[in-house]
C-alpha cells in the first residue's frame, strides 16, 4: 500500500459566525498523487485547504502531513507544504526575485539563489526577475505566487484555483509545471472549476458539497459518469416508439416523439454517431435539426449528490 502524505480524520470547521463550513471530512492522499478537489462556489474547498495549511484553525478532528500533526507539530508539517491561495496577493513593491527569495527564508530554508533561479526559469519568470511585482500582469502574478510556494522545495503543493483568469497557453504551461513536479515526487492538491483541467491533470477527484465530501473516485471512473453527452435529433415526423433496429443505441423519445435523444459518453470512443445516422437514413427516418448538449459541472454535482443540493 502506498503511504499517504495527507491524512485527514473527522475534520470539522465552524467559523466564528457559527457557519459550519466543513463536516466530518475524512480523506487520505497518497504520495505523488495529483488530487483535484471540485465543488460549487462556497462548498468549502478553500476552507479545507486553509485548514491544512494553517491559515484557518480546525474546530475538530486531525490532519497529518507526512505524519506530522498540523497543529501540534506545525513546524514540521508546514515545512512540507507550499500553498498558492485563491486570491492574487503579492507584496506590490518587491522585485520578483527578492519576493521569491523571501518565501524561501520565511519557510526556514538557507539561502539558495540557484534554486530560486531554477524555479523562476521553470515558470518562465526569469526575464521578469528584476521587475517590481506591481508592474506585471495578473497571469504573471499567479506564476510568481507559484514560484513563492515552490521556493522552499515543498513535498506537498496546494493550488487553490491556479488557473482562474489565466489564458489557455499559460494554463497549459502550468499543467506542465505541475506534471514536472509530480515526476519529482511532489504531491499536488488543486481546486478548479474547469472539468477539462481536472480531466487533464488529476489522478483522483474529490467532490465536496456543503462542507462534506460527496465522493472520491479515480478520474477515469468518474469521467465516464461525468462526461455524458446528449445528441438531440429533431424528427420530421413523430415516432411512437424507438424502432426495433435501433435497440443497440441508448435512445429515448422526447417531445411527444418529435425528438430522438441519443445519450453517450464523451470519453468513449465507441460513440457511434455516424452509424446511428446511417441507420436513421436506412430506416427512412427524416430529421430536420441536430444539437448536442453536455452537462455542466454544476449539474453534474447535483446529479452526483442525488439532487439534495
Amino acid at each position: 500500500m502506498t503511504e499517504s502524505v495527507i491524512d485527514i480524520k473527522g475534520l470539522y470547521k465552524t467559523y466564528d459566525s457559527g457557519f459550519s463550513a466543513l463536516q466530518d471530512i475524512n480523506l487520505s492522499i497518497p504520495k505523488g498523487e495529483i488530487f483535484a478537489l471540485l465543488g460549487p462556489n462556497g462548498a468549502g474547498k478553500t476552507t479545507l485547504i486553509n485548514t491544512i495549511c494553517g491559515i484557518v484553525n480546525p474546530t475538530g478532528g486531525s490532519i497529518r502531513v507526512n505524519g506530522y500533526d498540523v497543529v501540534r507539530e506545525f513546524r514540521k508539517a508546514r515545512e512540507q507544504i507550499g500553498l498558492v491561495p485563491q486570491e492574487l496577493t503579492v507584496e506590490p513593491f518587491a522585485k520578483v526575485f527578492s519576493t521569491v527569495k523571501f518565501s524561501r527564508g520565511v519557510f526556514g530554508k538557507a539561502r539558495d539563489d540557484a534554486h530560486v533561479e531554477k524555479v523562476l526559469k521553470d515558470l518562465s519568470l526569469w526575464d521578469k526577475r528584476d521587475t517590481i511585482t506591481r508592474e506585471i500582469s495578473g497571469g504573471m502574478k499567479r506564476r510568481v505566487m507559484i514560484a513563492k510556494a515552490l521556493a522552499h522545495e515543498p513535498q506537498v503543493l496546494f493550488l487553490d484555483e491556479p488557473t482562474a483568469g489565466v489564458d489557455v497557453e499559460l494554463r497549459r504551461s502550468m499543467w506542465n509545471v505541475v506534471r514536472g513536479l509530480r515526476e519529482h515526487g511532489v504531491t499536488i492538491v488543486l481546486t478548479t472549476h474547469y472539468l477539462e483541467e481536472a480531466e487533464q491533470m488529476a489522478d483522483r477527484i474529490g467532490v465536496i458539497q456543503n462542507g462534506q465530501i460527496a465522493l472520491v473516485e479515480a478520474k477515469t471512473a468518474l469521467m465516464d459518469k461525468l462526461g455524458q453527452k446528449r445528441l438531440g435529433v429533431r424528427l420530421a415526423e413523430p415516432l411512437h416508439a424507438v424502432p426495433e433496429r435501433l435497440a443497440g443505441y441508448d435512445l429515448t423519445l422526447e417531445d411527444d416523439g418529435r425528438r430522438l435523444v441519443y445519450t453517450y459518453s464523451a470519453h468513449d470512443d465507441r460513440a457511434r454517431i455516424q452509424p446511428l445516422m446511417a441507420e436513421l437514413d436506412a430506416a427512412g427516418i427524416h430529421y430536420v435539426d441536430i444539437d448536442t448538449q453536455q452537462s455542466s459541472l454544476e449539474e453534474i454535482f447535483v446529479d452526483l449528490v442525488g439532487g439534495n443540493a
Partner: protein
Amino acid sequence: MNWHAIKTIYAAEMARTWRTLFQSVVSPIISTSLYFVVFGSAIGSRINEVQGVSYGAFIVPGLIMLSLMTQGISNASFAIYFPKFIGTIYELLSAPISFVEIVISYVGAAATKSAALGLIILGTATLFVDIQIAHPFWMIAFLVLTTVTFSLLGFIIGIWADNFEKLTIIPLLIVTPLTFLGGTFYSLDMLPALWQKITLINPVVYLVSGFRWSFYDTADVSVGLSLGMIGLFLAACIAVVAWIFKTGYRLKS
C-alpha cells in the same frame, strides 16, 4: 526558533526603509529641525535656563523621545497591518513560524528603525545646541526600552486594526496628546501646582524625565520611578501580545 525566518522578515522590513527613505528618515529629521527652529531658537531665546540647561538643549531628550514613540508605533503598526490589508499575511500564517517569531522580527525591525532615527535626531541636535550625556549607559537603556515598548504597542495596534482609521486613531487621539503634554517642551515646575499633579498620571512624563536625566542629571520625577514605569509598560505590552498569541486574535479565523 526559525532563525532563517526571523532574519528574512527583519531584512525585508529594513529593506523597506531604503525604498521609503524620505518618508521614514528624512521627514522626521525635517520636522525635528523645525521644532528646534521654532521652540529652541525663536521661543527659547526668550526663556533662560531650565533646570540649569539652556532651553534649546533642554528639549532635545524630549524631542528624541517624541520620535521614538511615534515612529515606533507607526513603523510597527504599519508593518503588520500592511500584509493583512493586501492579503500577503497568508504566507506568514502558512509558514513554519510561530507568533513569537513574527513579533520578534517585526517589532525588532520597527525598534531598530526608530532607535536609529532617535540617534540621527540626536546627531542633528548637536548641530544646533551643546549637548552632554551624563549617563550614556542609561541613555541607551532608556532609548532601547522605549523603542521596544512602543514598537510592541504599534504591533498590537496593527493586529487589532481592521481599517486605516483604526490604525491611525490611537496614535492621533491618545499618543500624540500624551507626548505633547508629557514634559517635552517644559519642566513640570513651570506648570501651575494643580497641573503638576494632573500631569503625573501621564505615563510619558516618566519616560521623558528619565531620559532627560540620562543627559543632564536633572529630573522631574525620580529615576527609579521612571524605570519602573517603562518596565510596567513593557510588561503590559508583552502581556497583551501573549494574549493575542494564545487566542489567535484577528489573524486566523
